[in-house]
């Protein structure tokens, strides 16, 4: 990230796969820790190493993979898993739309390739770069995306390997990896959004809704219903203020 100013004079120089790789490095520790945890959770949910590699490459979504592992372990129907993950990752619509103007003129295939591998982190790096230049390079973005993508898969498999050596996950408290990750994601979002009161209310409503709906429908449907209710309540409360 510190090399940004050096490459500014020439846009062409900054647009290389190698520069994309370099700009990705500061984010790799995050991928390592979350990917590793995801691998352990997936392994304890009964995934094979091949399945772990495949889910990290095909789904490629931290929270999405935790949710998939948790819901598969709870024997949720596939359609519920798909709907839940769709909602969780719907923000990618917004992320892609936000950086699209910096890649105007690319072919549909190239746009698709960039957009489908975009993550919160690579979006963050790209958005930071976009504050200093009018356009972002295709090669640079691909270098950034691919570095994150491969590192993510490697971290997942590493977590899966370690998870494999652990015979009784519960004894080691590893069944807490999933709720622990949700706690972390929730707290980090809550802190960074700075809508403390409103977000707190949304969480409380989501909790009450899950508990209420769980008595009348399957768990996965209860989660989806609770998300719809809580997000709608958040929108309405925000309007009233």
């Amino acid at each position, binding site marked *: 990230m510190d090399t940004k100013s050096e490459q500014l004079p020439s846009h062409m120089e900054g647009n290389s796969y190698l520069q994309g790789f370099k700009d990705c490095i500061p984010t790799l520790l995050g991928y390592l*820790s*979350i990917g590793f*945890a995801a691998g352990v959770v997936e392994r304890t949910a009964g995934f094979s190493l091949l399945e772990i590699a495949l889910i990290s490459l095909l789904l490629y979504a931290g*929270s999405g993979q935790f*949710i998939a592992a*948790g819901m598969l372990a709870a024997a949720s129907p596939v359609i519920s898993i798909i709907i*839940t993950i769709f*909602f*969780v990752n*719907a*923000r990618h*619509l*917004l992320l*892609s739309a936000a950086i*699209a*103007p910096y890649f105007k003129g690319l072919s*549909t295939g190239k*746009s698709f390739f960039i*957009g489908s591998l975009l993550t919160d982190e690579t979006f963050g790096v790209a958005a930071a770069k976009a504050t200093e230049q009018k356009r972002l390079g295709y090669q640079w973005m691909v270098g950034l995306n691919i570095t994150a993508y491969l590192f993510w898969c490697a971290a997942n498999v590493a977590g899966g390997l370690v998870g494999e050596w652990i015979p009784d996950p519960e*004894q*080691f*408290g*590893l*069944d*807490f*990896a*999933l*709720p*622990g*990750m*949700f*706690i*972390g994601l*929730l*707290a*980090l*979002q*809550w*802190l960074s959004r700075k809508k403390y009161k409103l*977000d707190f209310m*949304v*969480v*409380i*409503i*989501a*909790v009450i809704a*899950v508990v209420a709906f*769980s*008595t009348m429908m*399957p*768990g996965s449907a*209860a*989660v989806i219903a*609770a*998300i719809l209710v*809580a*997000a709608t309540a*958040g*929108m309405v409360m*925000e309007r009233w203020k």
Partner: protein
Amino acid sequence: MILSKLRIPDMMIRWLDHVPIAVMGALLAQELLVSDGRVDPAGHLLELIAAVPAFLTAFLTKSLFATVIVGILTLIGLRILI
């Protein structure tokens, strides 16, 4: 890609803004309060206790990894003690 050519309705954006928080709240509540379709906080007592230091760690360190580790270690400790 497609959305760059369309306009997303303003209301949709404001709704989506609350989705991630709602999702995490709902999933966490299900993990810690519900088991086998029953509301069962007592069955998750140790996990609920472990959630407290995990939350504190998240707020203090802002690290996902530290949060998970502290939660797991607390749970191991509780299982040894109880």
